[in-house]
């Protein structure tokens, strides 16, 4: 098991003494390879706080997170014996806004910044940069450009390249597709599927888009008011009764299928995942 949460609680301290409890009794296990996980839940439900525990950026108030065999608890002090950097190299976390991390003059320098911090030689890091820039669907020519003159979608790709160049085993992305148009979103999701399939890495994505969840995820985690309320298959999630109380949408394809079943008074044999599949089913009944 790559990451294991045991009874994790987390509170944000506040000046007036009333601490805000962001995570409540989280138990969770994440495998090193082969998972494509989406993490969903409304704003403020604790999604970002949860993923920041995964590479020890923050430590639980009570309970423990074990990352690659190293136990992180409240008093696991930064200056103690535990070195956190090796963990951060293995669990790569991409923040929501690329503006939070891009700072170098050129895309190349920005991409090799991470690897160099983890002790990778510059020449090796540059080789990696040339590889990952292609991986995120940009031309090698981009390496010479300034990261600040890129479009929103390109910045996002560069920020992901910067994390990929660290060669993490698990890639965690906080709302990677927010603010992008549908085409930009689909391109990025295909990219993540590519990383997941070709490099056999576990990918965890925070998203609000239920179509993404239904189409791509092999496992879905739902957060609600600090609790992990669902951990399982996306298909089962959307047939659950309490999905509305978690303020989640229903994927479009399911809505259409249900409407058709309801109004045409039929029952399709299977639950379609793509519009093509639905088309085949509809063809049968008319």
């Amino acid at each position, binding site marked *: 098991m790559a990451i294991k949460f045991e009874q994790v609680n987390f509170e944000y301290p506040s000046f007036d003494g009333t601490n805000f409890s962001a995570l409540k009794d989280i138990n969770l296990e994440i495998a090193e390879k082969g998972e494509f996980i989406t993490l969903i839940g409304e704003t*403020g439900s604790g999604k970002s706080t949860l993923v920041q525990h995964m590479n020890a950026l923050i430590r639980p108030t009570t309970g423990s997170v074990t990352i690659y065999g190293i136990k992180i608890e409240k008093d696991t002090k930064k200056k103690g014996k535990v070195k956190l950097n090796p963990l*951060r190299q293995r669990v790569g976390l991409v923040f929501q806004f690329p*503006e939070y991390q891009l700072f170098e003059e050129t895309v190349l320098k920005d991409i090799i910044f991470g690897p160099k911090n983890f002790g990778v030689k510059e020449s090796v890091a540059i080789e990696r940069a040339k590889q990952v820039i292609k991986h995120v669907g940009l031309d090698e020519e981009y390496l010479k450009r300034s990261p600040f003159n890129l479009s929103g979608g390109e910045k996002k790709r560069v920020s992901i390249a910067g994390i990929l160049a660290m060669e993490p085993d698990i890639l965690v992305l906080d709302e990677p597709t927010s603010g992008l148009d549908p085409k930009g979103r689909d391109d990025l999701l295909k990219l993540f599927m590519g990383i997941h399939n070709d490099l056999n890495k576990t990918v965890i994505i925070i998203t609000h888009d239920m179509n993404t969840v239904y189409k791509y995820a092999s496992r879905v985690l739902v957060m609600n008011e600090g609790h992990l309320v669902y951990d399982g298959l996306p298909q089962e999630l959307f047939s659950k009764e309490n999905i509305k109380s978690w303020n989640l949408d229903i994927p479009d394809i399911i809505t259409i299928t249900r409407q058709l079943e309801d109004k045409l008074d039929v029952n399709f044999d299977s639950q379609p995942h793509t519009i093509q599949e639905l088309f085949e089913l509809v063809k049968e009944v008319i």
Partner: protein
Amino acid sequence: MKNIIIGQYLPGTSFLYKMDPRSKIIALMILMISTFILKDVTHILIMLGVVLLILKIGGIPIVRIARGLKPIMILLLFTFTFQIIFIKTGNLIFDTELTLTVFTLPLMIFIILFWYLTRRYIKFKFLYLLITAFGILTMLSLYTPGSVLSSSTLEVYGDGLSGAFFIMVRLIIIVTLSTILTLTTKPTDLNLGLEKILKPLSIIRINAEEIAMIISIALRYIPTLLDEANKIMLAQASRGVDFTEGKFKDKVMQIISLLVPMFIISFKRSDDLANAMEARSFVPGKRRTRLHTLSWHNLDTTVIVFCIFIFISAITVRVMF
């Protein structure tokens, strides 16, 4: 969400909270000037009494004031020492020979080193410093084995002692007064009060309203910026930046990796904000009405009259005695 409070506003209901921020600022200034007029220890002690009375009636816990005094402790200590050492008038109260020997020199260095290494674990840091300093002085004056390296006399004179005491009390009064203002006035009210008081400065082309608008936007965005700085630090920490350690060269890089994103985001933000303000018909320098207006009550007049009374008394005692 995290709760970030700017300033040190302490909610309350006493008369200090009912006052208009303008009268509070003016009263504060009158009392400060009065304090500076006084030149005698007895008078300044009476003034301290008045300030303590204000605290008592205003219902402000002394602990909060002490917390406000903390940052200036070192300054207080420095002026106190300075006064005692350099003022050599009045009657001699106390004198002692301070002797540095081959034996006490390393001992002194050892004590200082010990203090330096242990101070972070001690709760009352300031008291610890005082005790250490006092310990060294006692050792130098009483314990003199070995051959003498150098020696000097420490003399404390009456005027030095009273002067040191006087300056300390005066500093405490000034800090207490300004702490009362910030504890009982919200930053936004303070801003509004300052704007109104500075309004006459438009004669010399200083636009108080614009300054107030800048301060108010700063107040609005400081929590956002702090939150953002925190997120940037986490994002860079994810890329292996350890903000807690590193050599000087690494430190420079760490700071750049934090500052550049901060600046870029802030530029974008100020651009957006300027657009949003303009779109809502904001024109710099044009007359605006205001949601918040200040109202002057009898309480304010009473307090100001009281402060003027103190001011006149201060002038009187200064001239008469």
